[in-house]
C-alpha cells in the first residue's frame, strides 16, 4: 500500500500535478483528494489531509508566497515520522499570548482538553484576513464559527457549560437580524461584546471573570460602546447610581433587555414590550427579599394588572400605560426624587401626557392600590365593608326567599291538597 502510494506520488509529480509554491512534492499527495483518501482509512482525516492549492494561493498566507514548510517545519522525507504541530504564535506572537490567557486557551484541568486552537476558528489552510468576506471569522459569518462549538451540547458539556441553546437566540435578536437580514455589518457580533476592545477575539474570558466585558461590572460600559447615550441616562437613574456604587441587585442593561436574545423595544417578543414589561420589572420589584431590603412597596404587578391600565392591556389594548409610561425607562427615579416623573409635583404632567387636562387631584392619592384600607382611606374601607355586607345580604336574602317559596310549593301545598282531598 505504501509502496504504491510512493509510486503514485512520483507519477503525480512527473505528470505535472498542481504546483504548490515550491512544494510540488507535498501537493503530489495532499493536493489529490482521492490519493489522500487512499492513504488513510479514516475519511475525516483524509479530508483534513487534502489541501486545495488553488484556494491556498488566494489566502493571506498563500498570496504572500508561503510554502508548506513555512508552517509545517521539520518534514523532509516520506513517511513523515513525527510531525511537529504548526506553531502560529511563532509569527503571531501577540495573538498567541492572548489566546493562552483566554478561556479558549486554558486546558481543562481534568481532561487536559484545550477548548479552541487557532485553526478551530481560522481554519488551517483557508485563512483570509478577517475583513475579507471569505474569512470564517469575518463579521458576517463569525457566529457560525463560534456556534460550531457553542451550539454543540456535547462539546460544551465537556467544559462544564450546560447551556448550548442561548447563543442560538442571537440569530433572531435585533443584533443578529440587523447583521444577517439587514446587512448592517456594524451590528455587534460575538467578539464585539465578548472580546476586549481593540484586541478583539483572542482575549475572550468567561462572563464570571472580572476581565470579561460581559462581566456584571463591565456590561453597561460594553453596551455603551454603541449605546452611549443610553448609558448617560442610565447613570443618572436610581439603578445606574446604585450600580456605580457596586450594588449587586440593581439591573444592568441585560437585566431588562436580556442578552443574546435582545429584541427591539417595538417587537412583541421584547422583554420590555407592553405585554411583557410588567413581568420584567416585577421579576425584581415583586421579590419580597428585595422589597424588604430596599423598603420598596409590594404587589406592584397585581396592583397594575388590577388597574384599568392593566385590564385594558390584558384585553389587548397596547396603547395604555405600562410601567415605563409613568416611571420612565433608563433614567428611572424613585417617586421621592423631585426629578422623577412620578414625584407628586410632576404626576399631573406625567398623567397629562396621555390624558390632557387631567386635574391636579391625581397627585392626591396612591396610584397602585394594594389595599383599600391602606392605599385609599378608612372611609373607602368602610364603604367596601358595607358592600360586602350588602352583597352577602342579597345572596342570603335570595337564597332564603327561594327556599321559602320552594318549601311552600313542595311541602305545604301538597299537604293542604291531601287535607282538602
Amino acid at each position, binding site marked *: 500500500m505504501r509502496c504504491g502510494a510512493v509510486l503514485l506520488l512520483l507519477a503525480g509529480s512527473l505528470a505535472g500535478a498542481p504546483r504548490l509554491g515550491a512544494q510540488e512534492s507535498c501537493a503530489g499527495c495532499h493536493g489529490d483528494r482521492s490519493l489522500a483518501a487512499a492513504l488513510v482509512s479514516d475519511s475525516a482525516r483524509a479530508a483534513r489531509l487534502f489541501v486545495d492549492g488553488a484556494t491556498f494561493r488566494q489566502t493571506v498566507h498563500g498570496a504572500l508566497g508561503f510554502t508548506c514548510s513555512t508552517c509545517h517545519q521539520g518534514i523532509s522525507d516520506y513517511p513523515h515520522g513525527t510531525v511537529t504541530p504548526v506553531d502560529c504564535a511563532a509569527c503571531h506572537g501577540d495573538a498567541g499570548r492572548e489566546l493562552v490567557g483566554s478561556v479558549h486557551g486554558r486546558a481543562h484541568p481534568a481532561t487536559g482538553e484545550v477548548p479552541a486552537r487557532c485553526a478551530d476558528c481560522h481554519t488551517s489552510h483557508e485563512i483570509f484576513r478577517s475583513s475579507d468576506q471569505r474569512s470564517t471569522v469575518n463579521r458576517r459569518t463569525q457566529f457560525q464559527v463560534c456556534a460550531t462549538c457553542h451550539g454543540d451540547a456535547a462539546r460544551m458539556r465537556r467544559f462544564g457549560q450546560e447551556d448550548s441553546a442561548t447563543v442560538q437566540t442571537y440569530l433572531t435578536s435585533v443584533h443578529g437580524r440587523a447583521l444577517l437580514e439587514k446587512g448592517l455589518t456594524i451590528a455587534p457580533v460575538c467578539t464585539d461584546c465578548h472580546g476586549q476592545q481593540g484586541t478583539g477575539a483572542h482575549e475572550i474570558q468567561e462572563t464570571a471573570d472580572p476581565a470579561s466585558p460581559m462581566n456584571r461590572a463591565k456590561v453597561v460600559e460594553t453596551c455603551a460602546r454603541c449605546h452611549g447615550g443610553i448609558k448617560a441616562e442610565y447613570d443618572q437613574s436610581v439603578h445606574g447610581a446604585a450600580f456605580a456604587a457596586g450594588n449587586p441587585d440593581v439591573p444592568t442593561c441585560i437585566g431588562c433587555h436580556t442578552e443574546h436574545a435582545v429584541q427591539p423595544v417595538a417587537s412583541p417578543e421584547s422583554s420590555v414590550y407592553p405585554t411583557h414589561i410588567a413581568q420584567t420589572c416585577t421579576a425584581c420589584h415583586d421579590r419580597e427579599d428585595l422589597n424588604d431590603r430596599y423598603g420598596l412597596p409590594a404587589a406592584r404587578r*397585581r396592583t397594575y*394588572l*388590577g388597574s*384599568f391600565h*392593566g*385590564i*385594558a392591556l*390584558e*384585553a*389587548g*389594548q397596547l396603547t395604555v400605560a405600562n410601567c415605563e409610561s409613568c416611571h420612565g425607562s433608563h433614567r428611572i427615579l424613585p417617586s421621592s426624587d423631585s426629578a422623577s416623573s412620578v414625584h407628586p409635583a410632576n404626576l399631573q404632567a406625567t398623567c397629562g401626557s396621555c*390624558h*390632557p*387636562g*387631567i*386635574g*391636579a*387631584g*391625581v*397627585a*392626591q*392619592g*396612591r*396610584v397602585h*392600590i394594594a389595599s*383599600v384600607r391602606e*392605599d*385609599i*382611606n378608612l*372611609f*373607602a374601607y368602610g*364603604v*367596601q365593608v358595607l*358592600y360586602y355586607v*350588602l*352583597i352577602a345580604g*342579597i*345572596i342570603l*336574602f*335570595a*337564597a332564603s*326567599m*327561594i327556599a*321559602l*317559596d*320552594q*318549601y*311552600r*310549593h313542595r*311541602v*305545604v301545598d301538597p*299537604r*293542604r291538597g291531601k287535607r282538602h282531598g
Partner: protein
Amino acid sequence: MAEWEPHDADLDRIVIHRLTLAERVQHIVLMVSFTILIVTGIPLLFPEAPLVHVFGGAFPVRTFLHRFAGVTLALLAAFHVIYVLFTEEGRRDFGWIAPGLQDLRDLKDYIRHQLGKTDEPPAFGKFNPFEKIEYFAVVWGSAIMVTTGFMMWFFEATLRVFPKWVYDLVLLVHGYEALLAFLSIILWHLYNVHLKPGAFPFSRVWIDGKVTLRHLKEHHPNEYKNWLRRHREGLTGGES
C-alpha cells in the same frame, strides 16, 4: 243580597292591564341596557380571571358599548322621572309603589303563608313589598351607577374637582354596586318573576302587560278588591 262576584271561569278570561305600554318600553330599555352594561363591565372586576379575553381584543368596542348603554340608562332614568311626574298612570303607580308600614305586615303575612301557618294569601296591593324594594333598589342603583359612571368617563374633569381618593372610591362603588345589581337580578328577580312555580318558565307580563283576574286575586288580593269595588260601582252606576 250577596254582592256580585265574577264567576270562577271568568277569572281566567278577564284580563287586567298591569303595565302600560310606556312602562313596558321602559322595562325593555332597562333590561337591554342593563345586560349590555353587565356583559361589558363585570369582566373588568375580575382581572385575575381571564374574563377580559371575552372581548377578543375588541376592547375599544367594549368601552363604546358600555358608555352607549350607560347613556341610554341615564336617558331612561330622566324619562322615568318625567313619566312619574307628568302622567296620570305614572303618578298613580308611584303612589302605590311607595313603601309604607303595611308592607311590614304584608311581609310577616307572606312568611307565615309560605311556612304554611295560614292559607290566606298576604293582602298585597298592586306592588308587593319585594317589588317595592326592587323598584327603589333600581332607582338608587341607577342614580349611583350613572353618577359614578360619568365621573369615571370624565375622570380628567373629576380630578380637577376631587382628590384621587374620591376617584378611587368612585371606582370601588361602581364595581361593587354593579355586582350587587347583577346578583339581585340573577338570584332574585329572575326567580321571583319568572322561574318560581306558577310563572315557570317565564312570565309574559313584561311583554304584553296583561295578567288574568285570577292572578290578581291570588297574588294581589288588595288590588283585586279595588277592582271588584270599582266594577261594582260601575255596575250600580249602570243601573241608575
